[in-house]
Structures are given as structure tokens and as C-alpha cells.
């Protein structure tokens, strides 16, 4: 387990995860859509996608999460809004809250395709679950950053003040991962 303190990271793990990520993302979307007819669904799909994000974090460190440039709160809000909108939509049509609409298409080659409005609801659930897990992840990343910043500030103050006895800081060089 590594923090921001630069302990070694497995290159092999990082490469494996890089290769695995698209597979996991595709699988998570597959799970969500298939959920209407077979085991799966938005909760499961969202958890798989979240697992992919966490795997990247474990393999490549906080940069992997930061480089996504997504605020988890936006994901949470978007997911909740999508689910609520899907629920409200039938009201405009004179239907009931969360009433399902079924659209059938006949695209060439594939034959009949069916789209159910509640699949959109599941997508909302999916996005929200990803957001929640990412929020937790970001919380820990931020907390690590905070500790690092505090250390840096402390070091700076100490060097400015000319303290050179190290009696007070046996812990600053210790990595959390070694506990």
C-alpha cells in the first residue's frame, strides 16, 4: 500500500491494471444494461466501475484519480438527477410517476431492439454509485495530501527556526504503509 511518500509501486500491477481497465469498464456497462433481464443492474454495474477506478488508484497512486478531473459530487448529483428525471418524465405524458415506457426499434441487421425507460433509471443509479465510491476514495487521497502538506509546513518552519535536533520527530520519516 502506498501513499504520496514515494514508496515502490509494482510496474507489473500498473501495466496489468492499464490493460484491465477497458475490460472492466465495458463489463460494468454490460452488467447495468443486462440487469433488466438477467442478474446485474445499476448497483452491480456501478460497483464494478468503481472497482476499476480504485484499482487504478492502487496501481498508479493518487495521480490516477486526479487525472480523471471529475468531481465526485458532480457524478452523485448527475446520477440522482437522471433517476429523478426518468421518474418525472411520464408525468408530462399523463402517466404515473416512474411509469415505464417501452420503445421498440427495428434497426437493419440486428432485428428488433427494445429500449425501456427504466434502463435510464438504472444508468442514474450506476453513475451515482460510482460517484459515492469515488468520493470516499478522494476523501482518503485528500487526507493524505493534507498530512503531506502539514509535514512540509512543519519541515519548513523547523528549518527556518534553525531547529536541528531531531528529537521531536521520530515519525515523520516513517511511512504509514509499514505499520
Amino acid at each position, binding site marked *: *500500500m502506498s*501513499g504520496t511518500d514515494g514508496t515502490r509501486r509494482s510496474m507489473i500491477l500498473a501495466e496489468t491494471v492499464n490493460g484491465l481497465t477497458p475490460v472492466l469498464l465495458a463489463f460494468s456497462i454490460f*452488467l447495468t444494461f443486462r*440487469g*433488466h*433481464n*438477467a*442478474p*446485474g*443492474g*445499476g*448497483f*452491480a454495474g456501478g*460497483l*464494478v466501475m468503481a*472497482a476499476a477506478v*480504485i484499482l487504478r488508484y*492502487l496501481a498508479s497512486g493518487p495521480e490516477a484519480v486526479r487525472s480523471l478531473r471529475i468531481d*465526485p*459530487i458532480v457524478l*452523485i*448529483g448527475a*446520477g*440522482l438527477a437522471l*433517476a429523478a428525471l426518468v*421518474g418525472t418524465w411520464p408525468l408530462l405524458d399523463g402517466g404515473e410517476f*416512474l411509469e*415505464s415506457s*417501452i420503445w421498440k426499434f427495428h434497426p437493419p441487421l440486428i432485428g428488433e431492439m427494445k429500449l*425501456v425507460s*427504466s*434502463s435510464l*433509471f*438504472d444508468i*442514474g*443509479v450506476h453513475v*451515482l*454509485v460510482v*460517484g*459515492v465510491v469515488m*468520493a*470516499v*476514495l*478522494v*476523501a*482518503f487521497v*485528500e487526507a493524505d495530501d493534507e498530512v503531506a*502538506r*502539514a509535514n512540509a*509546513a*512543519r519541515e519548513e*518552519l523547523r528549518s527556518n*527556526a534553525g531547529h536541528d535536533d531531531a528529537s*521531536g*520527530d*521520530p*515519525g*515523520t520519516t*516513517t511511512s504509514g504503509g509499514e*505499520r
Partner: protein
Amino acid sequence: MIPLLLAHLVAFLVCLAPGRRSARWALPVAAAVPAVTFGWLVSQSSSVLHGDVPSANLEWVPQLGLGISLRLDGFGLFMGLIVSGIGTLVMLYSTAYFGRRDDLGRLAGLLVGFAGAMLGIVWADGLLSLFVFWELTSITSFLLIGFEDRSATARSAAQRAFLVTGLGGLALLAGLILLGIQGGTTSLSELLANPPSGTVTSVALVLVLAGAFTKSAQFPFHFWLPGAMAAPTPVSAYLHSATMVKAGLVVVARFAPAFASVGPWRALVVSAGLASLVLGGFRAMRQQDAKLALAHGTVSQLGFMMVLLGLGTPGTTYAGVAMLLAHALFKATLFLSVGVVDHSAGTRDMRRLQGLARALPITAGIIVVASASMAAIPPTLGFVAKEKALDALLDTGLGAIGTVALVGIVAGSVLTVAYTIRIAVGLLGNDAPGVTVEDGARGGSGTGALLEAPVDPSGVHAPSLAFQGAPFVLAALSLVLGIAAEPVGHWLAEVTVSLDPATASKALHLWTGVNTPLVLSAGIITAGIASWWFTVAATRSVDAPYSTATRLYDRAYDSLLAGARQVTAVSQSGSLPLYIGVVLVSVGAALATALLAGSTDAISDVPWANSSLEVPLVALTALLALAVLGARQRFTAAVLLGGSGYMLAIVYLLQGAPDLAITQFLVETLTIVVFLLALARLPRDFHPAPSWAPRWIRIVVSVVVGLTVAGFALGTSQSRTAESVGDDYLALSEPEAGGRNVVNVILVDFRGFDTLGEITVLAVAGAGVVNLVRAARRQQRRKQLSDGLEVEERSGRPSEVWR
């Protein structure tokens, strides 16, 4: 009627709007609303008195009969005229009384708000409306008694009054609800037209009377009223003599014709009324503050009217309504006049007032007229009403209880005459002794030294005519209505018909010839004068003792607070594990009770296991779970919990729940990762923290909770009586929602609203995590920017953070 009540509400809000800023316009504006109400009532009076009863309804929950429902009958008209008429006069008087003050907006708002609530009480037809307006008057009364909010006396008195009348209000509510259920209606008029009877009704009536007694300051709840004199004098005149304290009487007057013969009604009203009459009279003899003496007199007079209205015979009801009018007129007059005296002479202490008859001739005349009405001396309205009351009591046809009421009222009336003379002489008399130290409980050990000298009459400044206008009008009415007894009596008969049709033939007379009531009256007045004469010296130096009832109340209040503190100390120990333990034990106890109460026969059908795979799987899951308890290291414990969760996923799969298995598997994985993230920084081993309870107690609690929960689960699984909706969902899933996985269809379609709620919970948890982080970051930044020194200080002991 509803627009009028709304006008009161609007005026209330408008007057409160300026807050602490000066609002001299507030009182005149507030006075306009009851004035308009008075005018409207006058315009309605002829049609109302001829039986045309306007009503108004604002529905809220019609299924339960809840809403605001009003009805203007004769008695409502009569009380409405008193409330709005005296309200207008009091508010005009207040402009002179208060002069320049910054909080007049608040005063005016509360007064007009009270007037609206009081009108609601007298017009209410719905039982709920009655209660709501009743409590509104309690609240406005509380705020007005505590108007001088810097004074501990006023705050304490306001709280006392509110608690007593508020608790009474709750009793009234309970009584009204019971009556509503018994009578099968929520309308007061329908209830009174077809009164229910029986034990429940008797209980309900006792509760209603408890409410009425608290509001009308009847023994043993009388003590809040003298305390309420901490309010400014116009407030006392309006709320605590003319109107609010009549609310209990209004309810009794409406109920008595229908319910007086049910259960203990008559015994209660007569005993409480007579006790208040006599006790109030004695107390009034011992006060030196004229306002307090009047307050005790009010308790006494309210007791008198309680007996009359509560007996419920046509004669006493009629006389009681006449007394209501007479009392409202003379008591408001006397309070307002005491306010004038207080303003002019600077004191209400009757030991210091002297020579005011000459210094304030108009006020003196007003006081004499109002006192005459109070003491029932002809030709005032008080005399006419008292004659009628004695006449009715002589002929109640109720046997012993009527006789007791008559004797009690004659005795109380002697006291009334005595204290009336005492107050009038105390206010206006020529020779005041001054307050000496040895009189006072507040004094020291001096012997007869003069503490406060009598007021010098030459220094008393005459009040403005506007100041005296309101008491003048009211006093004049006491006199004029007494002289015009015949038409007034005719009008009152039309009013009281709405209470009891049998009062239609009643009448008032100023002169009835020499008959028993007149002889009794003469005797009462003679005995009253004699009582005053023989006690004048003794009562001159007594100081008002701290009322026993108040002392008992205060002691009860103090011990309530002390008890609450002890309960809090025991129940709020501050230990989270203890709280959790208590919650879990309660859950266990509740489940065990349900189990013991239910039948256990069905459990014999339960199989040992559903499949051969189940037993080893469950054993492994349980072992992993138990291993968590023994784990010394955080990480080990988390991994063991995860292992137990993975096993549980397989249990779900065996049960036929692949969706759950997938979700459980993913969640366990993510949980372990999150634990990993958190635990990487936390100490490796659990710290052996001091425990709140010995280990064996915790083990016993855990075993008991585990067994009861499992027993409950078994019992529940065998208790199904209806078919599950699951079958319908299975059948409808594909045609209605176009999906074959029923679990998912339930989540996103059939019970989609539930899922929406559940993902909202998730969203809140996620947002909570994010904000936790952001708050910490802001804090950190602020600290770095502004408080470099503290960072340095903390850096001296980094080992605490990096242990």
C-alpha cells in the same frame, strides 16, 4: 367573520413589523380593527338576535372534521361586543398610558392578536377551533404578562400563568376530543343539541372543567392571576379582568344548560366557584397594592359567575350573563382608573395615597361609580344583576346544592362589599399612614420608622382628558345600563336564548318592590360596611403574604427541574457504547416479548437445513465472523469480516438470489479496499480501551440479542398469512415493464420510488464524505495562513500525530 379574524392577524403582523423601532402609530392602527369589528357586530345584532345565525368554515382535513369553523349566535355576539368594545377603549387608553416607548409596536400587536384569538373562542363552533383559539389566548397572555421582560418577577409570573393555563388547555383538548367521539360530531352546536351521557362523558366534562377552571383562575388554580398583575395595567384591565379570564366562563356557560346534570358537574363548579369567591375576597382584604387587591377581587368575582353559569338553570344562566356584562364594565373601569392614579401619584400603594378625591375629581367620580357597581349598590348595573342572581338562586329547584350556592354567595358578597369599600377608600381616602418598616417583609429591624412617606396631594398632576376617556365611558355605561334595566334585560334575554331557550321570558328590573332579594341585598351591604369598619385598622398594616398556592407551585416547579437534572445525569452518561448497549437490549426485549406473545407451534415445520451444502457453508461463515471478535489487529479483523461476507454471498446464491450474490461480492471487495485505505494510517493493533462494563456483561448481552433476533426471524418466516406480492410482480414483469429479471424490475420500476429514496441516502452519504474533506481542507488553509505560530507549536510534538 373570517375576514375579521384575518384583519386581526394582519394588524398583529403589521404592528410587530417595526421591531424595536418606535411605532407611535401602532396603537391607533391596532385599535381600528376591534372598532370595525364592534361596528360590524352592531350591524349584525338585530338579525342575529332574531335567530339568523351566520357561520363560516375553513376546511383543513374534512375527513376528520378538522378546520376552522365559526358560528355567530346571540351569546357569541354578546361576548364579541364586550371583547371588541373594551378592546378598542383599552387600546386608545394605552396611547395615553404608555406615552413614548420603543416597544409599543409589540404591545399593540400582541393586544390586537389577543383580541382576534378571543373573538375566535367566543365564535368557535368547531371543537378544534375552540381549542386552537384557546391556546392562542394563552400564548398572547404569556407574552403580555412578560412584557416587561427585564423583570424576573414578570418573567416568572408569565411562565406560571402559561404553564397553568396551557396544561388546562391540554385537559380541555382531551375533554373535547372525548366529547366529540361520544357525541359523534366535531361541531359544538350539534354536540350541545344532542348531548351524550355516560361515564366517558363525565370524565370528559371533568377535563373540560379543569381547562375552564385554570383559564378563569378558579381555586386551586387561582394563583396565576394575581401574579399576572406584573403586566402593564391596560393589559391587566383587558385580558385579566374583562375578557381572557372569561373564556372559562364562556365554555361553562355554553356547556351548562346541556351538561349541568351529568356526573359531578354541579358539585365541581359550585365548590370551586365558592372556594374562589371566599378565598379571593379574603385575599383582597389583605393587599396594599390596589391593583393586586383588584386582582384577588377578580378571582372572587369569577368564582361568583362560575357558580351562576355552572348551575345551568335558566334563571342562573340569565343572571350570570348579566353579571358578565356588569363585571366586564366595572372591573375594566377600576383597573384603568388605578392606572390613572398610578400615573398621577406615582404609586398604587394604598398606604401612601391620600387626598386624591380633591386632586383627581373626575377619576374619583369614576372610581365611586364603578365601586358602587362592584358592591351592587343601586342604581348601577352591578346591583341589577346581583338582584337577579339572588332571585335565581332562591329558586333553583336543585335542593341542597342550590341552598349551598345561595349561602356561599351571600357570604362572599359581604366580603365583596367590604373589600370594595376598602379599595375605594384606600385610593381616595384622606388620611394615609405611610409605609413603615415593621410592616414589611421587605423591611429590616427598625421599629416603626417611616419607610415611604404618604403622597403629597398637591404634587399630584391631573391626567389628560384622553387618559380618562375610556374609564369614563365604561363607568357611565355601568350607571346608564343599570338605570335602563328594562330594555337591557330584554336584550339580554334575546342573547341568552342561544344558550338556553327557557331564558326567553327573563327580564331585569331596577326596582322590583320589597322582596327577598332586596332584603338580602340590604343585609349584605350592611354586613359588608360593618366588616370593613371593624377590620379597617387591622388591614391597614398587614402586608400581603406570599400566597401558599404560589409557593407550592414554585416548589413543585423547582423539584421538577431538579428531577429532570437527575434523570439526565443518569440517562445521559455520555458513554456511546453504553447507549448502544441500551438500544440493543431494548430491541432484544421488544423482539422477545413479541416472540413470547405469539404462537410457537409453526416452528416445528422448520427444516434443519435446506440443502446439504448449507451446513458447512454456514459453519464457515459463522467461524469467520466469530474470528473477527478475537482479532488483535485492525487489518486482520477487516479481512475476516470480508471473508465472512464472501461466504454470505454464496448463501444468497443458494437461496436463489444471484443479484444479491453479485452485489454482496462487489461490496465486500470494495469494503476491504476502503478499510485498507483507512487502516493503512491507523495503528496496527487495537488499543485495549477501558471498558464501560465487564466483558461477561457484554457477552451476555450479545448472546441474548443474537438468540432473540434469530428466534424472531424463525417466528416471522412462519407467520405469513397473505400471499406475497412477488407472484404478481413475476406475472407483470415482462408485459408491464419489459424486463425479465424481476428483482431489477422491482428496483427500477414497481418500487422505483423506494429506490430513488435509497439512492438519495447514498448521495447524502457521498456528499457527507466530500464535505468532510472540504471542511478539513478549509480549516487547514486558514490555519496555515493566519496561524503559523500554532503550526510551529504543534510541530513540537509530531509523535502524537504520527504514532
